[in-house]
């Protein structure tokens, strides 16, 4: 949140200390570079943002989990993803993609993310015509959540799992994709 405040100050006030100015510049740079505004911010995105994650050139293993605040098995497995991001930040890039309706962003999704202290990237995918995009994530996807897509951008290998993961399974899947 300091980033947001810092940027806000940098943008809207001229009477700054050099210190704040530097923070502001740094944070604005982060926003421009990654499109995220802080650890617990939730960005509402369209499919192109998801497509970017799935196709970008990155050395890190891409881990994309589809979930929603109303989905109990999803909530149960969220800590696995947070833990993975904590344990291997240099190796994986975890994104939690909420399929909640965009109009519950303020009263459900953001409070949930804050309460759970999620620090992974969280996106809310505001694409209601599911049949227009879910096949692009994986043709085998029935549309149920939880669902997880893991991509090794370097080898092009992908794994798609449409069910709740077991403890330790995520690490195992990543290992399989790394070899």
């Amino acid at each position, binding site marked *: 949140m300091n980033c947001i405040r810092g940027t806000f100050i940098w943008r809207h006030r001229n009477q700054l200390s050099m210190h704040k100015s530097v923070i502001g510049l740094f944070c604005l740079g982060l926003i421009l570079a990654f499109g995220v505004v802080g650890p617990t911010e939730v960005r509402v995105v369209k499919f192109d943002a998801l497509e970017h994650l799935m196709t970008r050139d990155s050395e890190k293993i891409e881990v994309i989990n589809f979930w929603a605040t109303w*989905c109990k098995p999803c909530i149960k497995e969220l800590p696995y993803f947070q833990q993975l991001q904590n344990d291997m930040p240099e190796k994986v890039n975890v994104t939690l993609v909420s399929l909640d*309706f965009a109009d519950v962003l303020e009263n459900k999704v953001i409070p949930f993310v804050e309460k759970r202290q999620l620090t992974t990237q969280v996106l809310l995918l505001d694409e209601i*015509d599911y*049949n227009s995009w*879910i096949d692009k994530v994986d043709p085998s996807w029935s*549309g149920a*959540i939880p669902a997880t897509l893991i991509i090794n951008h370097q080898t092009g290998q992908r794994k798609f799992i449409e069910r709740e993961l077991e403890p330790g399974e995520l690490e195992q899947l990543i290992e399989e994709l790394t070899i």
Partner: protein
Amino acid sequence: MVYLNVILIALAVLAGDGLKVGDQAMDFNLKNVDGQMVSLAGNKDVKGYILIFTCNTCPYSVAYEDRIIELHQKYAPKGYPVVAVQPNDGQRSPGDSFGNMQKRAKDKGFPFPYLLDETQEVTRTYGATNTPHVYVLDRKSGDTFVIEYIGTIDNNSKNAADADKHYVMDALESLLDGNSVQTTKTKAIGCTIKWAS
């Protein structure tokens, strides 16, 4: 012929992917919220059914409740009533227990049967995976119904007014006009079915 059908259905179930468009619909005998048993063959007057696997607890099912009622009100008089089947295991999903189904049906004034698939056998046979998951059935001869469409109701679960593809209605209109259904399969977006462990 009956045996052959049973074998074919059993094979389809063993294959793990459920019934397909063009397959004969399996009949069932399930308990309605009013305590009566309901089967497809029980109503001799209908041309077919809008069979919907749906439940109390899934936000997508809730979002579609009014549209399911509208489908019934519009198409039951034309020969295609809704039959709703609740597929979730009541222990894994207590909000979907028979008592809660009865309450929901009463509160919303469901004008159609709301049946409990207690053994989950019907759900498994049809291959429903999500709620709501729709199967449009058309009577071919006698009590033989064929599946003409499988999937979602329309393309906007959040807001009926914003939907611009009405898959189930389009399928029914085609059948009523004596034409073949254009879009026969979509993905039924919704909550996973809660299987008994």
